């Protein structure tokens, strides 16, 4: 079984990729870590951000072990600078 996951991008990461969302296919029971790797394979320009990105699923930060399911809203959060 393969799922399409769309990831929202913002700010520097959005500009770097040139899109405000990217989609990848994940096989079976994929983790957040698998998702990040799949995005970096498809969009190598994300690589410099990889170690700084936190992943949010449905508006909450999640760990790399978390699972991603079809229908989840996923976002890559590069270091924030509000305030």
């Amino acid at each position: 079984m393969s799922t399409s996951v769309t990831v929202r991008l913002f700010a520097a990461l959005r500009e770097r990729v040139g899109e405000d969302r990217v989609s990848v296919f994940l096989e079976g029971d994929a983790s957040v870590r698998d998702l990040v790797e799949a995005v970096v394979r498809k969009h190598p320009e994300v690589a410099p951000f990889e170690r700084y990105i936190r992943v949010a699923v449905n508006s909450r930060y999640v760990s790399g072990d978390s699972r991603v399911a079809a229908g989840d809203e996923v976002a890559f959060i590069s270091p924030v600078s509000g305030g």
Partner: protein
Amino acid sequence: MTARRSVSLESDPLSPGQVMAHVQDDSAGAIDVFVGTTRRYTEGRETVELTYEAYETMAVAEMDRLADEACARWPLTGVAIHHRVGTVPVGEISVVIAVSSPHRAAALDACRFLIEGLKADVPIWKRERYADGSIEWVRPLG
């Protein structure tokens, strides 16, 4: 006690007095208000304006989570966190956090917790436009 609560993203200029009004309460003896403004000079470079971009639904959810956590840790009567999005010229306000409590130490501690938490976790990003014409996202790699 149930604290008054106001969390929002705003595209119009922020008013500290209006944010403070959200936390005023007869049983509060202390209110602490933190105001972040656009600074003209940073390490000798002149800034003209900042632009804030937010992942809006999550930013509001994270600000709510921070407010929940502050209310769990301190006896608060009100918490307000208002952050501006879009372009903010030098001298204007980007964020106002107001906290009320019967006790001043709680108001001060909670206000500090909220601004530190906001800067660490709330998905809002800042792009700086300098007087020399350059435009840069602030520390995109941490």
